């Protein structure tokens, strides 16, 4: 898997967020995007995940030498972010089941059980997400992101809302992801930056 971003530029309502961002990211790589608040870290992550379009510039995704169309890129990537929400009225299992089915995940039920157990949410699967605490919701977002074994994992603020046990589990996940696949995170935490092979600093 490879992501190539050329001359990315983003403006919101005429205000420049960033410009001239060039990236080339291959397998077994972890990129950390850093910068002050409002510098555009989250925006860059969202652009790379194909959730918003850049004002200028181009992103290409390749898998096994063949280009992947933007319409199919969702099959290869997952995102964990404080602004990304799951369906509050549905239970955790219902959320994971629907989203997993849409992601064409095989052996979905066993994966749900395994990941819920790993993130300490076993026994809470059938509770509505709106009854979860913010830390539990963050753990559930990791379960959702990992259920499809993504080729590219985007993580915005990896430690957000997590306790020590949650942070340890997340670091294990980050380590596994960068071993074989692509990990792109937006963070300013020194602990998180230890996992990065390359740091991209955005100054806004």
């Amino acid at each position, binding site marked *: 898997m490879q992501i190539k971003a050329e001359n990315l530029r983003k403006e919101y309502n005429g205000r420049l967020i960033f410009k001239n961002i060039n990236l080339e990211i291959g397998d077994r790589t972890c990129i950390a995007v850093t910068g002050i608040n409002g510098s555009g870290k989250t925006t860059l992550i*969202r652009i790379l*995940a*194909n*959730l*918003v*379009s850049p004002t200028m510039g181009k992103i290409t995704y390749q898998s096994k030498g063949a280009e992947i169309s933007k*319409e*199919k890129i*969702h099959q290869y*990537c*997952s*995102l964990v972010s404080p*602004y*990304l*929400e*799951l*369906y*509050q*009225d*549905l239970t955790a299992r*219902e959320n994971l089941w*629907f*989203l997993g*089915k*849409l*992601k064409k995940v095989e052996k979905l039920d066993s994966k749900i059980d395994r990941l819920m157990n790993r993130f300490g949410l076993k026994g809470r699967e059938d509770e509505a997400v709106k009854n979860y605490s913010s830390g539990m919701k963050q753990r559930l977002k990791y379960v*959702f992101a990992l259920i499809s074994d993504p080729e590219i994992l985007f993580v915005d603020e990896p430690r957000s809302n997590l306790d020590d046990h949650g942070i340890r589990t997340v670091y294990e996940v980050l380590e596994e992801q960068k071993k074989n696949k692509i990990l792109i995170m937006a963070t300013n935490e020194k602990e998180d930056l230890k996992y990065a092979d390359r740091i991209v600093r955005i100054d806004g």
Partner: protein
Amino acid sequence: MRTGSFESMVDAFYIFKKDLIQEFKTRYALNAIILFAVVTLTAVSFSIGVISADDDILCAMFWIILFFSSMSGLSHIFVREEETHTADTLKLVTCPTAVYLGKLLFNFMLLLALEIILVPLYFGLMDFYVRHLPLFLIVLAIGSVGLAGGGTIVAAIIAKASSRGALFTVLSFPVLLPLLISGISATRIAVNARSFTEASAELQTLTAYGVVVITVSILLFEFIWNE
């Protein structure tokens, strides 16, 4: 091997199922749409009750109540995704075509639920008698497809705006006007017990409207959804 369009249909079904379960838990759209219809119908029946309205007025009134009732609920399907910040979650798991088709299916089912309640009530309260019932039901079914198709794409557009409530009806009206005119005209033919042949022009217009609106919506939806 699965084709892209088959995958979109399967995904659309999962999105529809997800929305249906959410709706059963919250009943937001269903309550809004049915309460609006019942209140409007009651108000109209009290106002018109003393005057004997002719069939032409009753046909027009039926479609006006159907249109405004649907306006109170059809937009909810996309507004909910934007307000609860789940639109990005959906973007991360499936393609735009599947999202549009899933939401379209949900809105169509919502309209059917509305019609199951509205039609018998309208017949009873307004003394509305349809002599050619099969024709009336076909007009209603084809009209609902167009209403759901147009309503769903306008809902996707207004979900991105800040003043959503007012915009939906205002934007939908010109889009759905051809459908309303043909629907009223075809209903008038059904009320007067004329044949399918006499309503063929209206049926063709309603069918063409539905096909064109849904096809154009599928083509344009990606740009609206990813805006």
